[in-house]
């Protein structure tokens, strides 16, 4: 059988997109920090600087989404299924838990304001666990 290394090429392409995705995500995170703390500690809430920081943040976010789509298209059909399943579960749990969490303060079950960071952490953990379970299922 001719060993044409298609799988190797496929995984090299996938690896390339994983690295790109990691870099764009890091850039986006840095822009989030800059947007949040820059206004307060660097440019003293001057609107022009905040608009520039916000624009950079949104552009980097769009680039991150674009690379994520490319990464998804570089996966084979089982890997894509595992990833899409994990994304679906994450979206579902994020929506259900997010709405329930948001209500907690309104119905006086918690004394503090719900924070979006908690929801993002929950979604991150859900995604990672779903990917692990998916990979284990098709091992």
């Amino acid at each position: 059988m001719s060993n044409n290394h298609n799988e190797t090429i496929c995984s090299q392409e996938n690896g390339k997109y994983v690295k790109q995705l990691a870099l764009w995500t890091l850039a986006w995170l840095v822009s989030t920090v800059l947007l949040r703390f820059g206004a307060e500690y660097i440019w003293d809430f001057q609107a022009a600087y905040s608009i520039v920081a916000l624009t950079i943040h949104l552009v980097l976010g769009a680039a991150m989404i674009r690379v994520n789509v490319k990464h998804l298209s570089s996966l084979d059909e089982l890997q894509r299924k595992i990833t899409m399943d994990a994304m679906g579960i994450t979206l579902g749990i994020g929506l259900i838990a997010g709405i329930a969490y948001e209500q907690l303060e309104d119905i006086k079950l918690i004394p503090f304001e719900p924070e979006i960071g908690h929801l993002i952490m929950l979604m991150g953990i859900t995604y990672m666990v779903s990917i692990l379970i998916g990979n284990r299922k098709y091992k």
Partner: protein
Amino acid sequence: MKNRLKVLRAERDWTQADLANALAVSRQTANAIEKGKFDPSLPLAFKIAKLFKLSVEEIFIDEQA
């Protein structure tokens, strides 16, 4: 869905990595298809059939039929 991939692969003395290479999929995917844990899409099923020079029905057996 059952399949004859393991037998067909053994007849040709191919490893799962060889099969995965030929189909341009990961070894995880080749293994999951072979074990019947994952049913391939129609294009991939035809690609497998073409690789073994057989029809799809000669490789994949529908257990519900």
